[in-house]
């Protein structure tokens, strides 16, 4: 009898295959399509001067923090009443040994871009509500999503942190002074909350190939599982309206994709309740 850990190192594919064949995941989670969500919403008492809201999310074993900073900027001349919402995802070396303190690599940039795709435009927030004075000053919301611990499935965790932080964000009342050409706002006064139109929740599934070529999906893959997957699927669903806000996938049979979308919708409803 081989030690399970040794077997896992030598034959990772076969190790996972044996578990999945019986409908169980190696780390104890039940089932393939239902995932246990362990969410902790943390709001620190101390709020930094520039940072409006912080929120830490634990998605299984991922720990992500999202800070939303509001600054004032001059709007684009083509869109004088539109503000900006700028997400950025960062993986500092603290979150995993595979990340080095160098410039963002392909992985980091592509996760950042996927989050940006979901967030851009007026889909989440009507950017006109961020206008302080048309043509002169608008709010820019910088959403810095930082991973403190990464164990697979970055996009879902990043979106959860972002959504929670955004809902929590309150801006001060800002007044544009024509005379001085500046904006005045009282940092201690946080009365204006954002009018969030949609709450995107991501559901990522790993596509695993069984013997004989049949493909199956497992929800929320961990780092280890990601290595033996042939591909993955991410479906982003709006918690309010059940509309889809993003579908990304590769090598997935059409009907399996439909199943994933169905599961993603259910999950969005479940998370929203939390």
């Amino acid at each position: 009898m081989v030690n399970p850990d040794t077997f896992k190192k030598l034959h990772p594919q076969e190790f996972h295959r044996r578990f999945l064949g019986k409908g169980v995941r190696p780390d104890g989670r039940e089932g393939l399509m239902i995932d246990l969500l362990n969410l902790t919403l943390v709001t620190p008492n101390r709020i930094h001067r520039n940072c409006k809201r912080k929120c830490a999310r634990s998605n299984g074993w991922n720990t992500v923090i999202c800070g939303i900073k509001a600054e004032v900027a001059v709007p684009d001349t083509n869109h004088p009443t539109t503000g900006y919402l700028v997400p950025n995802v960062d993986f500092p070396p603290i979150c995993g040994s595979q990340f080095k303190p160098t410039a963002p690599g392909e992985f980091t940039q592509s996760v950042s871009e996927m989050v940006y795709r979901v967030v851009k435009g007026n889909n989440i927030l009507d950017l006109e509500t961020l206008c302080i004075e048309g043509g002169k000053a608008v709010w820019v919301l910088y959403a810095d999503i930082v991973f403190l611990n990464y164990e697979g499935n970055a996009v879902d965790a990043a979106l959860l942190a972002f959504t929670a932080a955004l809902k929590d964000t309150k801006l001060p009342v800002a007044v544009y002074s024509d005379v001085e050409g500046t904006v005045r706002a009282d940092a201690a006064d946080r009365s204006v909350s954002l009018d969030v139109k949609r709450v995107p929740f991501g559901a990522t599934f790993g596509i695993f190939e069984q013997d004989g070529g049949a493909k199956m999906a497992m929800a929320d893959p961990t780092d280890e599982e990601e290595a033996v997957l042939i591909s993955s699927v991410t479906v982003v669903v709006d918690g309010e309206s059940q509309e889809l806000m993003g579908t990304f996938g590769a090598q997935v049979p059409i009907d399996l994709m439909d199943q994933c979308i169905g599961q993603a919708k259910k999950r969005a409803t479940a998370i929203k309740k939390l």
Partner: protein
Amino acid sequence: MRSNGRTDEHQLRPLSASFGVLSRADGSSRFGFGTTEVLASVFGPKEVRIRDEKIDSATLQISVRPLNGLSGPLHRLAERQLRDLIEAAVLASIHPRSAIQVTIQVTGDDGCFMSAAVNAASLALLDAGVAQRHLLASVTLAFDPNGTLLLDPSLKELETAKSVHTFTFSNSNDAVIAGVSSEGVYSQDEYKQACTVAQQACATIHSFYRKTMEQKLAPQ
């Protein structure tokens, strides 16, 4: 009236493809949807740096360069998606400890450059004689504000689109989506509709590939 004189919402722009456009590359191709055009080059299997080499398969090095400006996160995501598609298509295990370099250069962009890039890459790999499991064909679709599905949208149509979907299908099994990337706001039914139209459009593109290859290899 859509761009290129199209009247049908489910009509592709004129397709163009050519092989061997670069004399130094092992393989190269040009693919276009109307004025959106992409040039792809392939080098390999060739030497690889020791730190990049894999003992059981070729290392794929993919690079996407935009028409203008510097490449950014948008192109890193494009590279990652292209890598997922090419890794599944290329039989990399027959060339361990070597590198296959694919470079994409956008030479014209009136919308849908990502789909053109996938198609150009697939054809460049074909020109280079790299062993592949299947060929890839990709199309982009958009839903306009009225909810009408437009196939192969132009840049103007993309600006006002409610959602944009890029689908890729292989020529060996069209019940499997080789790749999908959607953004915007849409319903599951709209997604399904886009998927079905994309399937048919990709089949058209695969026929186009065959015809182009037949013309190239025709005895003089």
